[in-house]
């Protein structure tokens, strides 16, 4: 192939790679079922009974031997009276690239099918190619409104496999940042939810308050979003000087402002008319659909992983789990608004109880040595180099770790084969699972309320599609 003898070795190497690649291709199984059916919402005549049940949101188990006849559902509707319309993926109120297909009878929504994947970037596959040191930069981009929770769950899973224990300060810094992030995420939700209901003032206020939290993040981590701050072994840097004052200003301002939101929205008749008894879900239905987070709590189930399965040091904090009673839009609003207040309570306690000490584990195999040590010690230089080039090896095993993100249970299932890259990294995104509740929430409601209901589920498409 080549005229130059010197390149022979390179060519052989390339051929080997190509052969390996070809072999892998031949090995790839293209099973017949890859050309499966359409993802879209189809007319009733061509939809199976099971699929139809899902699309109308009939989720509870039938009694033994029960059978659903498609004719039983909305028996007076016929295809020629209904219309299937497409909403999204470029609709301004679907919070990103969510696409919904809705079957309407006049203005009433009968069936819904969320169609997702427009933002799919293969982050789970990418995660297998990145070392544990690099992994947090990948996961932080999934749920871009609560990046610190994503980093946290990844780090907790890695640490569980490593079997290391963190110094207390690292744990409490993580908790502080996670709670601030919950505030910023809920404020963002308040803003968009207000906008979807026509309250543009709320949108401006929500963004204004969120910016305060993000400024603190910028000061601490260097970035407003996608921080890569929480890493396996601790956090990237200690809190900046005077952080107590910054945090207290944030708490004080936002707490006072939440009472302004009360005046603006909570007691306002128009807002209540638009949200009360809209998009109802019962506790049984929410559990059957694996729905977690504020949506589940709005139905009255006190399930909050910070309380029920404590991680970090949440068992040392005094806070309330906010629950609703009707599971409608208004309850979801109240749960989130009050969770901001609870987070403020927690942040104040954390600021008071923050232990001194190291902000990351002093294990040279996991965390890099301090910059000053590199000039003095050859060992430190080697460790520094190794951690950032190869990463550290994680013992074989598999683990599932779940935390309470602002949207619900955020889980990470991680399999390690003993190398420095995860063998499999699966993220259980709460938005992805919560979206399944949409057909149920929208059914029988008005088209005009659909936007408000979608907003109340709080989907973040970066996490849905990953």
């Amino acid at each position: 192939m080549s005229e130059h003898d010197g390149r022979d070795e390179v060519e052989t190497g390339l051929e080997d790679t190509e052969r390996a690649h070809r072999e892998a291709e031949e090995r790839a199984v293209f099973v017949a079922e890859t050309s499966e059916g359409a993802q879209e919402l189809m007319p009733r005549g061509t939809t199976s009974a099971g699929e139809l049940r899902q699309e109308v949101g009939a989720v509870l188990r039938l009694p033994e031997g029960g059978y659903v006849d498609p004719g039983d559902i909305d028996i007076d509707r016929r295809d020629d009276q209904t219309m299937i319309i497409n909403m999204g993926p470029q609709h301004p109120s679907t919070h990103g690239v969510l696409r919904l297909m809705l079957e309407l009878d006049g203005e009433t929504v009968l069936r819904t099918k969320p169609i997702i994947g427009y933002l799919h970037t293969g982050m789970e596959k990418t995660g297998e190619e990145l070392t544990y040191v690099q992994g947090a930069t990948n996961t932080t981009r999934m749920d871009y409104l609560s990046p610190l929770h994503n980093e946290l769950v990844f780090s907790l899973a890695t640490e569980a496999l490593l079997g290391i224990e963190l110094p207390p300060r690292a744990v409490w810094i993580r908790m502080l940042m996670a709670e601030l992030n919950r505030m910023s995420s809920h404020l963002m939700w308040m803003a968009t939810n207000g906008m979807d209901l026509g309250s543009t003032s709320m949108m401006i206020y929500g963004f204004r308050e969120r910016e305060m939290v993000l400024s603190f993040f910028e000061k601490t981590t260097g970035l407003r979003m996608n921080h890569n701050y929480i890493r396996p072994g601790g956090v990237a840097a200690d809190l900046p000087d005077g952080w107590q004052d910054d945090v207290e200003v944030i708490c004080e301002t936002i707490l006072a402002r939440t009472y302004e939101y009360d005046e603006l929205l909570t007691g306002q008749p128009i807002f209540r008319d638009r949200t009360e008894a809209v998009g109802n879900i019962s506790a049984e239905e929410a559990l059957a659909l694996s729905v977690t987070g504020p949506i589940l709590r709005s139905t009255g189930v006190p399930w909050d992983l910070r309380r029920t399965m404590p991680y970090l040091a949440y068992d040392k904090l005094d806070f309330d789990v906010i629950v609703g009673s009707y599971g409608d839009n208004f309850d979801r609003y109240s749960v989130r608004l009050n969770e901001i207040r609870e987070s403020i309570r927690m942040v104040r306690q954390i600021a008071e109880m923050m232990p001194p000490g190291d902000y990351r584990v002093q294990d040279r195999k996991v965390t890099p040595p301090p910059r000053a040590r590199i000039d003095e010690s050859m060992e430190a230089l080697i460790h520094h180099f190794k951690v950032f080039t190869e990463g550290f090896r994680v013992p074989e095993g598999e683990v599932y770790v779940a935390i309470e993100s602002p949207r619900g249970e955020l889980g990470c299932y991680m399999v390690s084969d003993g190398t420095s890259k995860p063998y499999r990294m699966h993220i259980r995104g709460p938005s992805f699972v919560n979206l399944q509740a949409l057909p149920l929430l929208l059914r029988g409601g008005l088209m005009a309320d659909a936007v408000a209901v979608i907003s109340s589920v709080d989907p973040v498409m970066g996490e849905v599609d990953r």
Partner: protein
Amino acid sequence: MSETAPTAAPVGTTAAILPEVPRLPDRLVDQLAFPHRETYHQMVGAFRDGGFELCADLCAVDYLTHPGRTLPEGVTPERFEVVVNLASLSMRQRVRIRVQVPESDPVVDSIVDVYAGADAMEREAFDLMGIVFSGHPDMTRILMPEDWEGHPLRKDYGVGRVPVQFKEAPGPR
């Protein structure tokens, strides 16, 4: 509420076992169960009736290049594994079910009739790993386009083999 006795393994299924799992110091070790494909659906149903109300997660793992993983005796390792994480709200407990699925016949029973919430997760496992869940009402791709070929999370999926597809450009097919 949390004082309730831990669940015993459901009767008539593979005994739930507790192998050595690395754990966080403050975290309960999840219970692990390794049913066979035939008893998987029945076991999930038994857990559901035994108080595990929430199907927290379902995903699949391709063990093609890592065959030597630790499994309890009596479980034959296969290429694929379907992993289901269930949670009990009343007992504050988790259980993880791992089913071996052979490469030659990647089919496993769907648990959508037990947990309606497994719907999207099973579609995701099918889409990205190519596990077929028999009995699922709508077994279509969820994240990838519906005419995509192959299952990207499989270890032998050629990354970069399919060129980036633009409209009206001559595609690979």
